[in-house]
């Protein structure tokens, strides 16, 4: 099964998906002219609020739904392509598996679909069950698994075929902090193993922590594609000061004196937390604080984060009328013309 050599692992061109509701025939635009590409070996974060069209894009890539317009290819092969899927591991959003199977039986089933022989299936299952930490639960049927355990089983089944591309739809959604950390570590391990990872998420801290490049999708439209460092403005956008004021009545006095120079001021016991805008003179404020008897606990310049960029883009989209009409359905609606 030889596939053509491709520059891009994923290439999406002018992709659109429009649904019509069964009775009212309302036009539902889930995707609107989306184009991007994913290069070999990178971790690509697909970011957007609920209802942005992330899952719709992924389902088109996986051949589960057909686009209304545009094209998508995997490894240079137009989707849907069985040959391309043989090189992919996929974890769906909120994954459901055959609940009457054990994780071993699930991995055996997936191994069979990838054409692995019995020994390879057994070895791969043992290895992956260990990697995702389900060894103690391997004899339990999946119906007894918690959400986090199902997510781990989902990651294991996505890796059975030793894929070149791993597509993860909201892999950290619903996981506790420990679970999220483990998923991030698995994704980084995949990068170390020279895999390409395409994952969608609305947990921006996860994306910023591990993604090489991101695409921001809002209301079915793509707003940004690029490296996080290129997209976010690395200038200082504000500075956070924490001051300790020992005198009991000094906190209120210091707060009153410094208030006009700050964007925001917050009092916590005998400490004051100040946020100073980019145009504020931090040295001058520090000098004044010391003159008021305050001790400087910390000075933290704050740069723009992916979350700031995301919120900015979502606001722009909101002003253009691309809201979050039906978040759970991953679509936005327009009235029929």
């Amino acid at each position: 099964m030889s596939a053509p050599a491709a520059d891009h692992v994923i290439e999406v061109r002018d992709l659109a998906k429009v649904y019509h509701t069964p009775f009212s025939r309302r036009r539902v635009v889930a995707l609107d002219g989306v184009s991007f590409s994913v290069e070999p070996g990178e971790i690509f974060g697909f970011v957007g609020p609920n209802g942005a069209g992330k899952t719709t894009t992924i389902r088109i890539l996986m051949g589960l739904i057909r686009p209304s317009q545009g094209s998508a290819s995997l490894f240079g092969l137009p989707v849907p392509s069985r040959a391309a899927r043989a090189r992919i591991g996929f974890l769906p959003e909120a994954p459901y598996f055959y609940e009457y199977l054990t994780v071993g039986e699930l991995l055996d089933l997936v191994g069979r679909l990838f054409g692995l022989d019995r020994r390879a299936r057994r070895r791969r299952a043992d290895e992956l069950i260990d990697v995702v930490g389900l060894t103690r639960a391997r004899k339990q049927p999946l119906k007894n698994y918690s959400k986090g355990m199902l997510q781990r089983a989902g990651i294991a089944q996505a890796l059975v075929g030793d894929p070149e591309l791993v597509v993860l739809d909201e892999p950290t959604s619903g996981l506790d902090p420990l679970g999220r950390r483990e998923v991030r570590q698995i994704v980084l391990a995949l990068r170390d193993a020279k895999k390409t990872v395409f994952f969608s998420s609305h947990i921006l801290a996860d994306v910023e922590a591990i993604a090489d490049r991101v695409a921001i999708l809002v209301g079915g439209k793509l707003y940004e594609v690029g490296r996080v460092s290129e997209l976010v403005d690395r200038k200082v956008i504000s500075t956070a000061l924490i001051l300790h004021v020992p005198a009991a009545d000094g906190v209120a006095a210091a707060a009153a004196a410094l208030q006009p120079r700050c964007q925001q001021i917050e009092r916590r016991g005998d400490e004051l937390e100040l946020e100073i805008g980019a145009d504020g003179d931090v040295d001058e404020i520090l000098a004044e604080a010391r003159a008021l008897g305050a001790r400087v606990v910390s000075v933290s310049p704050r740069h723009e984060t992916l979350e700031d960029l995301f919120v900015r883009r979502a606001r722009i989209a909101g002003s253009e009328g691309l809201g979050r009409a039906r978040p759970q359905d991953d679509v936005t609606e327009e009235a029929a013309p």
Partner: protein
Amino acid sequence: MSRAGAVGRSTGSMLGRIYAVALNTFRWAIRHRFLIAVLIVSAGVMLFALVLGQMSLHQEQRVAIDVALGGTSFFGCITAMVLGSLLLYTEVQRRTIHTMLAKPIERHELLLGRYAGMAASLTLLVAVSAVMMAGLFWLQDVPFTAATAKSLILTWVEVLVVAAVAAFFSSFSSPVLSGVFTAGIWLVGRATDELRAAVESAASPVIRAACRAALYAVPDLHLLQVSGSTLDGVEVSVHGDFVSWSYVAAAAGHGALYVGVLLALAVVIFARRDFL
């Protein structure tokens, strides 16, 4: 996370993938409460045949054969309707289809595998019923004749045809609608003798046309439950002169043709669906 060296990009044969899905479907079916319940009720019906035999006037053997064969056919077809109606619906409803279709498997392979697994579990059901039947016959001192074996084979074919009808409806409708449509086809399919009579004798041309259309559209299940009918002027009965092996082969061929056509239609419909 080491690379599995032996893992290549070859994904095996189409038959291997269909077998994988069939094996999974077989596990689903045999772990399904409904199948277990049907087996228990079937066993109860066999035992009830013993009581009915005692109540009859020296007709123990006839009662045993009729109840056992009738029960096998009835429960087999009901199970085919229920499992067939759920066959693809549960896969779509629970979104396991998202995981499956993202693997290197074609949609038609998934559908054929699902049907093959269900057919295997229904075959097991008929086989277990046959074993229980043999036990009943032994208790009643009834010989297990070639006629009984032929009747069982025809019943098995009928069950597989009903399963294909249910799987076809399951490819595009809900389990309730699939079940209702399949039950309708089953009832009409068993009444093809009456439909033929209506084509000959009904006064209304509309009724005649409707009956003729139904004869073309539905599988002739009467061919598979032939005991008590008159074929070519000869009355055939599982208690006496029954059909030949060539008849069994021809009727099974008719059933297989219907299964093939229904699965082909289901494949076409399934291939065009979006799975949201």
